[in-house]
């Protein structure tokens, strides 16, 4: 059975590979984004050495790493699930002896692997050539970051799945999906690191899963969070991963009762 799940990773990976040309433009778009934020932060820093605990250098690296991490963990599972619910093809998924949501997760991971190898890695190389990004030299930091990045993917995908499942309950969850996208980008700290948020907002962020997607791992990678504190950060990610399983399970259970297959 496990081999079937692994096959879903493989097939999605190969499918993405077939459409790889679509992603070349993505590398350029991400590079432009990173460039824009780089110059913006340069202007904001002016003569100042540090802001909210970030040096200019750390900030440049933070921006580059965060955007490139997004290139990896980003996926459209929410849209895929919502579409399958809306057009009724979820029915076909339910006649197979596997867990639909786990299959979705695997497909997301296949996409993630593709994005990592053909999008994130070459993108990172391009960005490092253009901007003064300083990457850590300690292999342990790299290893920690890679594991954390995997959890970024898991948590982000869980939020996507949860958003997608809402299609069971509302006729059109397009608005919800857009809102989620903006929220994840803003609250995960891709656009602005959470340390720059007003006090009350960053206090709220402490209690939401978004920071575990980008802000926490990127802070560890750029060295703003010292390596000794990496373990509690990782622990927080694991807690969110486990915690998010509960609402997904509940939503799925409720959804099965409400399911009504469109188109006969």
């Amino acid at each position: 059975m496990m081999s079937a799940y692994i096959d879903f990773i493989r097939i999605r990976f190969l499918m993405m590979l077939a459409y790889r040309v679509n992603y070349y433009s993505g590398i350029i778009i991400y590079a432009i984004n990173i460039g824009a934020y780089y110059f913006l932060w340069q202007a904001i820093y002016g003569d100042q050495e540090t802001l909210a605990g970030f040096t200019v250098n750390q900030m440049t690296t933070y921006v580059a790493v965060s955007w490139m991490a997004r290139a990896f963990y980003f996926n459209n599972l929410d849209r895929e699930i919502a579409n399958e619910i809306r057009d009724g093809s979820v029915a076909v998924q339910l006649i197979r002896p596997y867990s639909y949501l786990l299959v979705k997760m695997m497909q997301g991971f296949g996409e993630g692997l593709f994005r990592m190898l053909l999008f994130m890695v070459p993108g990172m190389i391009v960005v490092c050539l253009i901007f003064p990004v300083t990457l850590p030299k300690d292999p342990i930091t790299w290893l920690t970051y890679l594991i954390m990045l995997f959890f970024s993917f898991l948590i982000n995908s869980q939020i996507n799945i949860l958003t997608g499942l809402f299609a069971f309950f509302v006729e059109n969850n397009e608005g919800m999906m857009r809102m989620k996208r903006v929220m994840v980008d803003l609250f995960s700290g891709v656009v602005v690191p959470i340390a720059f948020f007003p006090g009350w907002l960053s206090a709220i962020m402490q209690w939401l899963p978004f920071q575990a997607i980008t802000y926490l791992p990127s802070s560890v990678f750029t060295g703003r969070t010292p390596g000794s504190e990496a373990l509690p950060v990782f622990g927080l990610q694991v807690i969110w991963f486990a915690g998010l399983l509960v609402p997904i399970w509940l939503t799925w259970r409720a959804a099965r009762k409400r399911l009504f297959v469109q188109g006969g």
Partner: protein
Amino acid sequence: MLAIDVKDLRKKFNVQKNREGLSGALKDLFKREYNEVTAVKDISFQIPQGEICGYIGENGAGKSTTIKMLTGILVPTSGDIRVNGFIPYKDREKFVNGIGVVFGQRSQLWWDIGVIESFQLLRKVYRVSEQDFRKRLDVLVERLQLGELLNRPVRKLSLGQRMRCELVASLLHNPSILFLDEPTIGLDIVVKTEIRDFLMQMNKEQGTTILLTTHDLQDIEALCSRVIMLDDGRIIYDGGLDELKNRWSKGREIQFQFAAHTPLEKLKQLTDPLEVTWTLENEVTAKMWLPHAVSVSDALARVVGGTEIRDIKIFETNTDDIVRGIYQSGSAAAGKETVMS
């Protein structure tokens, strides 16, 4: 043993009501109203193992909803279902190992990959051993003549080719019950016949129980020993196909071809006391419709005695007409009354 056992099965849906106009949309925003629609109303039936049962009814009669409850996709509002000894929606993952499903209007193959890759993936999903898989695949490929299709991507198949592949996909794990939801929709007559023959043979050789919904009554005539007819969520007929025909067909039609022009008056005269109706098709051809009450030999004798005849054809009312009649009358009760009267 019973393959399918359904008791007082009911499914209710809440369908959102969209009120008209801007004020309606605003009201909807704050307080949604729902229409309660009962798609399946307390139906009960049992299907023993090895039977091929046709499940027919108008669009929206509740056929697909029933199939979806039987396959564990939908959770019933009330009632009991046992399929293969399982309650479908409860042990879904275990239960679906023993059933095969084909939806005529939905593909279960993966659109982007080759047919054989889809089959391989299904092999892993259903945990079929490589050996069994090969054996079954070889047989199925030969029967349904898929040989050269196996390496094509699914999206490049024609509907007929895809449908044959769908059948193989639903049978790779050797299910004991096969659910077919409009399996022949949109197919040409050659493929239809091929699929019917295949299903018949499989039922004979392996004893596979088949429940199929269709709008093509020829499917039913070719395959089913038993028909369940649904109307507005209720079963209005459950029994043999022949019995259905006998019960609802009201008569037959006989076409005569005469040697010379025969006027309608003369024909009417010939069959005078009998309750038959004549229609002239052209100069030399006429059709006589006679109800079951009138004996064929009696009517024929009168006509043959009075005219010179080149050719005679007898038409049984076909199933299409019968079923159309039942659909239009709306319920089986109406049908029964006319039969009894």
